């Protein structure tokens, strides 16, 4: 999560007391503030950016309410009035004031309504998932120039960060055009043609094996995770989606391949910009699209039609060269792969010979175009539009179109087709038009206090799948049944058990637990063991940890402390859990780099009966043991107690320290003599204005100092003088902390803190708003209703979805 989230706008405009329709503060409150506060917090002085003379008393609205809550906190802590103030309230006056505030808050809570999410546009993830579902593309992505979402605060599902600037609109139009190009291509696409010989056919440079006298290329490879032995056209990138005709001058050296079937070539397509051409790529990045048999005997030209998307290329392989299982796969190092391949090369087994390759196209539209349209060029009449276009629009708009909308759409497309004289133009236009409509780009745009059925279906599916509602959800919405409590619960359970909920895991942990930042953090790698395997391990171990709590419906206290965690082999090496052989990270990395199959983390049991573990590993239960979390709260070079403290407060305590006020005096603190970070931060405790927030932040950060910038364990700081780390500190309420375990204990003993925090995060993400006063009341009720054994994670999610916070617009 971003470091300091909320910037409270501190200048208020509405005058308090005597405006019609405005609530006026009770006399007792006003007396107190006039006597003890106004002299510094008036129009003239505005100390700390606070003006009490104009602070509205509307306690049902978030901004003024937050201000009054802060006033409550500072007065009750004795922070205000400050020591140098002339007048101080005695205990009775103070308590009366605080009691007055509390009762006013309670009254406001009765009145405040939950809700307040404005219409929000699909963010990048949601947009991509949705179009992949509607159009069935596997590998479509937004162009590089498409602007990022800009969530300055909070989740990327919150509309404050989802502007629709002209640049975004242009991006949407460009992508819509891209989709239309693939789905309903325009006539006269740009063409490609090539004519290659054995000398010019591209191949995995070190493994283009030739027959005697270089007469032909020998297929000696297989295509699994090693991508060994593929051949390709080095210049081919499809200029348009469609079918490309590939002619190959080839022959097999025997009738049948190792699997007992005739020898054959297989074609695999992929996007070459995703990885550099000569390196290897994860197998899931490529798609098998076509195959052709290769007859034995004399070389002859065989032909294969290969569907390729615009911007993609293909490789070809001989899939049945050897029996499955005889090829090197998985976690091998270069030496091992080389030796196997040497063996293969020298084996006198039959294979395919290739002497030439010609590529041309597109010669036809892609098969899916004909599947969808039935015929190409497509039909363009009312019937065709009604049966094909309206359902597509309805999917895109996430609701059936009204009769008026349908008529207008059909008329417009027919007219466009007539004007351009070719039906392809009309369909191309139709797709772009639908995908640029605000009905597609925005969801939950309505004038209701509680979401309508269709809007609720959208909110639910985008929460748990980051994608559009499916047929079952839409049918329930059509029947008016989705909002019924039992149905909503059942649907939540269904969506959670569907594999599409992996998107919830990915994007919620991406933001709540900082995984997106882990993907991008720059770690100073001459100080730390760091490479892509470590990074991948950090990201995936956080996801798998979260996933286990979710899938097994574990108690949410598991997030605080657990008897398991996850680690991949790179992490095990760093944590010194690997066996002696090949222990160094470099060795592990080398092995993995060769296969380029990044290792998934495995579960590590932390219970005392499990394998012998280093003690710092055994103490890695819960979120605070996840190295990803610990890494993003540093700068890649050094840990930062401030960042860590703020992060823990934000994401586990649900507390957001406000930014420093304007009139922080010009302190010129000389920190050049400080020898360690604890001393550097001492300044925070010495200055009152800093202390107010840093008394919450610093102790937590200091207690985590045994974790370095990549979450590794250290007993002392690097440097000439080995200063042993002192991880002890004191919270404002007097609790002594010493290390991560003490923070966990604190949260376990005061479990409502984390319950409140997690519930709030889920609702912010799912409902897409910072919770309003009315929302918070609902959350507090749910927190108070926590069962004695504690909430379980799925149950908490269900409770959240069934609550008024989620259901209110």
């Amino acid at each position, binding site marked *: 999560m971003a470091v300091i989230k909320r910037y409270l706008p501190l200048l208020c405009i509405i005058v308090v007391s005597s405006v019609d329709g405005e609530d006026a503060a009770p006399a007792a409150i006003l007396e107190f503030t006039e006597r003890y506060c106004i002299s510094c917090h008036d129009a003239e002085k505005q100390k700390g950016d606070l003006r009490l003379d104009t602070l509205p008393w509307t306690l049902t609205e978030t901004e003024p309410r937050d201000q009054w809550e802060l006033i409550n906190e500072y007065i009750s802590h004795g922070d205000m009035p400050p020591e140098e103030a002339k007048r101080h309230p005695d205990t009775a006056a103070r308590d009366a004031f605080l009691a007055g505030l509390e009762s006013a808050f309670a009254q406001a809570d009765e009145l405040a309504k939950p809700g307040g999410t404005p219409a929000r546009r699909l963010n990048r993830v949601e947009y991509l998932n949705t179009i992949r579902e509607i159009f069935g593309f596997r590998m479509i992505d937004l162009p590089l120039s498409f602007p990022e979402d800009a969530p300055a605060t909070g989740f990327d599902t919150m509309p404050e960060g989802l502007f629709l600037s*002209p640049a975004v609109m242009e991006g949407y139009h460009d992508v819509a055009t891209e989709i239309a190009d693939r789905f309903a291509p325009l006539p006269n696409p740009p063409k490609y043609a090539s004519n290659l010989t054995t000398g010019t056919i591209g191949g995995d440079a070190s493994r283009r094996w030739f027959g005697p006298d270089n007469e032909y290329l020998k297929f000696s490879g297989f295509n699994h995770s090693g991508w060994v032995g593929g051949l390709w056209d080095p210049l081919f990138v499809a200029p348009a989606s469609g079918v490309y005709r590939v002619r190959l001058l080839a022959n097999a050296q025997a009738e049948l391949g190792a699997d007992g079937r005739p020898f054959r070539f297989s074609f695999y397509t992929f996007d070459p910009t995703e990885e550099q051409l000569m390196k290897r790529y994860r197998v899931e990045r490529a798609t098998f699209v076509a195959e052709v048999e290769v007859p034995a005997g004399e070389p002859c030209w065989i032909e294969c039609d290969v569907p390729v998307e615009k911007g993609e290329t293909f490789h070809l392989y001989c899939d049945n060269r050897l029996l499955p299982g005889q090829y090197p796969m998985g976690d091998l190092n270069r030496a091992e792969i080389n030796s196997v391949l040497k063996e293969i090369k020298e084996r006198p087994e039959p294979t395919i010979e290739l002497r030439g390759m010609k590529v041309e196209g597109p010669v036809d539209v892609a098969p899916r175009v004909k599947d969808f349209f039935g015929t190409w060029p497509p039909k363009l009449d009312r019937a065709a539009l009604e049966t094909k276009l309206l359902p597509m629009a309805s999917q895109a708009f996430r609701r059936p179109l009204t009769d008026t909308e349908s008529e207008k759409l059909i008329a417009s497309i027919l007219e466009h087709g007539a004007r351009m004289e070719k039906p392809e133009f009309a369909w191309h236009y139709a797709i772009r038009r639908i995908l640029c409509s605000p009905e597609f780009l*925005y969801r939950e745009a309505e004038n209701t206090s509680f979401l309508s059925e269709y809007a609720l279906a959208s909110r639910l599916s985008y929460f748990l799948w980051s994608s559009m509602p499916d047929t079952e959800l839409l049918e329930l919405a059509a029947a008016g049944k989705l909002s019924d409590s039992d149905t909503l619960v059942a649907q939540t359970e269904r969506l959670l058990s569907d594999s599409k909920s992996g998107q919830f895991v990915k994007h919620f942990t991406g933001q709540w637990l900082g995984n997106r930042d882990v993907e*991008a953090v720059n770690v100073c790698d001459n100080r730390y063991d760091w490479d892509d395997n470590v990074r991948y391990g950090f990201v995936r171990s956080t996801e798998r940890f979260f996933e286990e709590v979710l899938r097994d419906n574990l108690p949410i206290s598991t997030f605080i402390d657990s008897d398991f965690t996850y680690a991949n082999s790179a992490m095990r090496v760093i944590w010194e859990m690997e066996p002696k052989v090949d222990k160094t990270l470099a060795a592990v990395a080398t092995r993995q780099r060769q296969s380029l199959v990044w290792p998934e983390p495995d579960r590590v049991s932390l219970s005392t009966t499990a394998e012998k573990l280093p003690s710092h590993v055994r103490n890695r239960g819960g979120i605070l043991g996840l190295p990803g979390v610990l890494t993003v709260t540093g700068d890649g*070079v050094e840990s930062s107690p401030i960042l860590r403290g703020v992060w823990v407060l934000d994401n586990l305590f649900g507390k957001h320290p406000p930014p420093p006020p304007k009139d922080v005096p010009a302190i010129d603190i000389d920190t050049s003599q400080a020898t360690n970070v604890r001393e550097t931060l001492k300044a925070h405790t010495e200055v009152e204005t800093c202390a107010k927030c840093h008394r919450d932040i610093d102790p937590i950060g200091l207690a985590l100092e045994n974790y370095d910038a990549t979450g590794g364990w250290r007993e002392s700081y690097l440097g000439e003088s080995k200063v042993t780390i002192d991880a002890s500190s004191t919270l404002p309420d007097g609790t002594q902390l010493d290390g991560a375990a003490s923070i966990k204990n604190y949260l376990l003993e005061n479990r409502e803190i984390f319950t409140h925090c997690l519930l709030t995060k889920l609702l912010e993400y799912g409902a897409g708003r910072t919770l309003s006063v009315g929302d918070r009341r609902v959350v507090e009720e749910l927190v108070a209703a926590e069962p004695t054994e504690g909430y379980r994670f799925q149950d908490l999610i269900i409770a959240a979805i069934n609550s008024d916070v989620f259901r209110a617009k």
Partner: protein
Amino acid sequence: MKAHPIHRRRFLQGAIALPLLPSLMGATQSKKAPKRLVCVGTQLGWYKPDFFASNPSARLIQPFINAGVRDYLTTISGLDHKGPTGNGHALVYTLFTGQVLHSISLDQLVAPKLGADTRYESLQLCAGEQRFNAPVSLNKNGIPLPPIIRPSVLFAKMFGGKAADLERQQYLLESGRSLLDEVSGDAASLQNRVSNEDGEKLDEYLTSVRDVEKKLARRRDWLDKPFAKPEPGFIMPAEENVAHSMMIQNEDLMWDLMALAIKNDACRVFSLTIPLADGALMLNGNLMGAGYHNLSHHGNKRAKVDDLVAIETAHMAGAARFMKALRQTQDVDGSNLLDNTTLLIGSAMADASKHRRVDFPLMLAGGGYQHKQHISCGENEAYQNEMACDLFVTVLQHLGFEQDRFATSQSNLNAALL
């Protein structure tokens, strides 16, 4: 992390070159040259003791001395927006908006007029990914404009990328406009059915659609005009990386491409955001030992300051190279491009180490001003200005705008600079 290839020298240094200005083909010597504005802001401030030219050994001025453009700049101290300190980073985007929150930035104010005759009205750039806080350009609705972060995208915008299928482009641009017209209808009808708050969101949509319609119309008009050809010595590197560690390499390309764009008159209004980077940067072939953000919190420790100044010197080296290239190119009025290009460099993070917003580092360069090396503003100084926007008023007037106010200005700096 693998070391990426060092950036290659891309720029033709040397003799004065004639400008390639297709929009002014056939211009005579007496023709008035177009005015250009380049606004550059950093999110991590500048180290002021080495920034202000009042210090004769200011390290950040050295690149300009080396490039022979030292006489075409003025640093200005004592100005700021008089805004609250607040969260150290949150308001750093207000450098060119004058601390009037969510209002238009200087470059966007001038863009419609200055950029009327070029292919692109204005371009917003960023040296790599821009992930925290907003960039320095905001449109008239106060919405931050997402910058181009990839030099290859900027290159394609200027030189047309791959050979375009003109007929197809034409169809897309024309049908695009009628399509946007239709979906505006969708939005208008939707606005009747939604709450007020939603209606405001849809206003955003409608404004954007109208803007894109105008852009498409403009691109349709420009479709018939040829793109410029890049200079023969200019090579874009094969790899492109927008990760923060490669910020300087990315930034170098942005400076060079901006100079090219001005030479080709593809665009006359630019902004460049130099973003906050938490991680360590690659500098001169080595990965630095501390993150950029970390270094900006130097606490006056000598070693950290030196490292920070090294990074900032790299930024200034790009600026100096840019200025030199423009100075060496003739403009249509017989002078040179630099004299007609105003360059503003600064930061609203006045002191990154302490997160303070008092006394911005500001530099005005090029533009044909009466440069004075350094101007000190404030009480007891020759120039009693307090507000940074006073400087922007002077710039606006020099660019041909008849206004004596901008955002939070109280006066102007004409006496000093014009």
